[in-house]
Each structure stands twice: as structure tokens, then as C-alpha cells.
């Protein structure tokens, strides 16, 4: 039986010029989608980079038992010299699986196109497809719906809810409608912890 994935922050402190996290604690021990909200510059992307190991905490420690982490970056980070399909097979050798993801996200018709030939919304979907193709134990999705139209957004949300049912998936978004459609677990990132919020609380936090 597969071990349950756990992600835990213990008294983590991280600063640039200003303090982003201070003695920050949180724990995710149940599979599901968690939406992280917060004002711009509050450290949401830094939080993801700390989880993925791209940044190291100055104090405290981060524990997880994931062997792979799928990270959808804020920028698409698709290799411009590869086609859509090659961008996916470079992270997962199983070509059939990559094609099936493209089909489910309605992207198969562009498999041979280069990123430079795609629109912003399509690029975002391809980047998302790539993160899914990697099939990590933890998913970090940084603003996954930027540039994607409403109809597609609905389709992707139901796809993610099915696909990531048995993973820990953290999603950064600024859009409360997106967040509530995705999950009932809403958090606002604060210096010391993640504060559980409702839709109404969130409006208060933003203003």
C-alpha cells in the first residue's frame, strides 16, 4: 500500500529584504486540493519554492515524503525548442500517458506545435498538462488559470478534481470564484501560519 503523503512546515523563517515567513507552521496530511489566497507580494510563490526545494529556509525545517513534486510555475517554462508533446515526454517517458493527458485537456491537436505558435491560454494549459504528466505526489499550481477562458476553466477544474483526488495539491489563486469552485479548503497565507478562511473572510482580507 502506498504511504500517505505528508507536508509539514516547522517554525520556518524566510526573509528577502522583508520577512516573508516567521516561525511559520503548517501541516497537510490529507489528500485534496487546498487553495492558497493572499495579497500580491505576501510570499505565496516563495512558499511554493520552499516546498519544492528551490529555496531553503533560513530557520526551521520543511518535511515531506513526496518523491516527486509537480510544480506549475507562474511562468509557463516550456522549452521553446521542443514541441508540445516533446515538452511533456521530457518529464515523462511514457508517450501514451502524455498523449492521454493532452487528449483529456483537449490539446492533442497541437501536439506537434512549438510554444511560440500557441496563444497564452493554450500555453498555460500545456504547462498544466506537463505538470500532470510528471505525476508528482505533491502538486503545486501557481495561478493555473491565467489567460484561460471561463468555459475551459470549468472543464479544467473538473479534470483536476478527478485527477488529483489522491494527491496533495496546493493552488495559488487571486480569484475567489476559482478557489471556491476548486476546493472547500481555502487559506490565506500569513507570516506565521495559513489561516483557514471562508469566501466572506477572504473579501475582508483583500480589502
Amino acid at each position, binding site marked *: 500500500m502506498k504511504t500517505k503523503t505528508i507536508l509539514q512546515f516547522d517554525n520556518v523563517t524566510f526573509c528577502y529584504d522583508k520577512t516573508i515567513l516567521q516561525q511559520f507552521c503548517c501541516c497537510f496530511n490529507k489528500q485534496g486540493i487546498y487553495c492558497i489566497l493572499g495579497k500580491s507580494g505576501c510570499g505565496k510563490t516563495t512558499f511554493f519554492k520552499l516546498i*519544492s*526545494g*528551490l529555496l531553503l529556509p533560513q530557520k526551521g525545517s520543511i518535511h515531506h515524503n513526496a518523491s*516527486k*513534486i509537480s*510544480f506549475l*510555475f507562474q*511562468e509557463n*517554462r516550456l*522549452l*521553446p*525548442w*521542443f514541441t508540445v508533446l516533446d515538452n511533456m515526454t*521530457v*518529464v515523462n517517458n511514457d508517450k501514451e500517458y502524455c498523449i492521454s493527458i493532452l487528449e483529456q485537456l483537449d490539446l492533442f491537436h497541437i501536439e506537434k506545435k*512549438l510554444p*511560440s*505558435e500557441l496563444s497564452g491560454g493554450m500555453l498555460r494549459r500545456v504547462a498544466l498538462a506537463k505538470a500532470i504528466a*510528471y505525476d508528482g505526489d505533491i502538486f503545486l499550481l501557481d495561478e493555473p488559470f491565467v489567460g484561460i477562458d471561463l468555459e475551459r476553466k470549468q472543464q479544467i477544474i473538473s479534470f483536476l478534481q478527478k485527477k488529483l483526488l489522491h494527491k496533495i495539491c496546493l493552488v495559488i489563486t487571486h480569484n475567489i470564484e476559482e478557489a471556491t469552485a476548486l476546493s472547500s479548503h481555502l487559506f490565506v497565507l500569513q507570516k506565521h501560519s495559513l489561516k483557514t478562511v471562508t469566501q466572506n473572510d477572504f473579501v475582508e482580507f483583500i480589502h
Partner: protein
Amino acid sequence: MKIFITQNKKLISKTAILFVWLLFWQFLFIIINKEILIASPIRVIKTFFSLCLEYSFWHTIFYSMIRILTGYLFSVLLGILFSILCYRSKILYDFLSPAIHTMKSTPVASFSILVLLWVKTDFVPIVISFLMVFPLIWTNISIGIAQTQKQYLEMAKIYGFSYFKTFRFIYVPSVLPYFISACHTGIGMAWKAGIAAEVICTPNASIGKKIYETKIYLETPELFVWTICAILFSILLEKIFLKLLYYISRKIGILYENKNNTAI
């Protein structure tokens, strides 16, 4: 059909431009009217064809080309190797950097005379073309490596790319345009520097020696012929080498092109 007409137009316009320059040359010759200062185009063309029939002409060009290409290939190989080593070791980069910058600004003449004290005349053009091209290859590849986007390297780290995979799929495509540009400029540079070294050291069977002899015997038409040959062979080498480079890159799968067949 349209492409064919466009290509034909280009050829006609190029021929016309060449013809205008030949006319200008002839005009200058008529005005100056001293063959020792400027040879007539007709005489140069005649000399060229008569030289083409001689075995020694091709023998000379072949040996000059072999010497210069040897130096050039060494500079490409060592340029690649040292730029990678310098990327891996900051100490090596700091250590080599001043030497390579000195190589860049040292005149060919100084190098040729200095190298002549150490090696046989036959080897001087090899060493000189190496010394002229190596800094260019090293600099361009080093810039290419430094310009490799951090965001792709972060992506590679997250998605668990091995060193080889990161090198092959991120560094090589990022550096390739810089490398090709260096090779392109370098071949002309090696040719010019190599011939200059040959003029100074006069090794047997070399274009440089032939140019030197035309100076001694005041054979201006031959000087023109050898100069034109040097230019023509430089262009030819450049074209062959670039085609070869693109061909090899495509064959080993490191050249990525879009639908217009332009490298990405």
C-alpha cells in the same frame, strides 16, 4: 515558380553588382595606368586561369587549407572543453580569463614571430589560427552558458532532470546559436590570421609565401590572384563548414528548427 523567379532575380542583381565593381576596377586601372600599383582585371583573370592549370597552385591551396583548418578545429574542440571546465570551476575561469583576453588583443605579427622561435615554420599558421579563434569560441560559449535561462534550470531541477538531460535539452540548445555564430566568424578569422602568419613565416607550399614572393618580385597581378583566391576559399570554407555544422547538429538531434527551417 515564384521562388524560382525570385532566385533568378537575386542572381541577376548579384551578377550586375559584380559587373559594376569590375568596371570600376578597370576604370581605376585606366586612370592610374601603372600595373605595379594596380593590375588590370583582364590580366588578373588570365593569370588566375593559367595558375589554375598548374599543379603547384592547388598543392599550395591544399596545404594552406590543411594548416589553417587544423588550427581552427583544435580551437573549436579546446574552446568547447575549456568553456565547460570554466563554467564548472570559477577558479579556472578567473585564472584563464586574463590570458584569453591578452590573446584576443595581441597582434598576429607579434604572435607569429614569437611562435616562430618555438615551432617549425610549417606549424606556425596552425598555432596562429588556433590562438586567434580559441578566445572567440571560448568567449561565445561562456556567454551562451551564462545566458542560459535560470527558469529552465529550475524547471529541470524540479522535474528531476539528470546532468546529461539538463546538458542535452537545456544547455546545448541555449548555447548552440552562440557556438554557431562563433564558428562562422572564426573560420574567416582563422583563414586571415593563418595567411598573415604564412606571409611572416613563409612555410613551403603556402598562400602566404606566394603573396610574399609577389611582393619581392613586384608581381602585382599574381598578388591580386592570390588575394582573390584567399577571399574565395575563405567564403567557400565558411559555407561548407556552416552547412556541415548544421548537418551534424541535425543528425545528432541538437538543432531545433521551426517550420521555416530557422534554428530556434
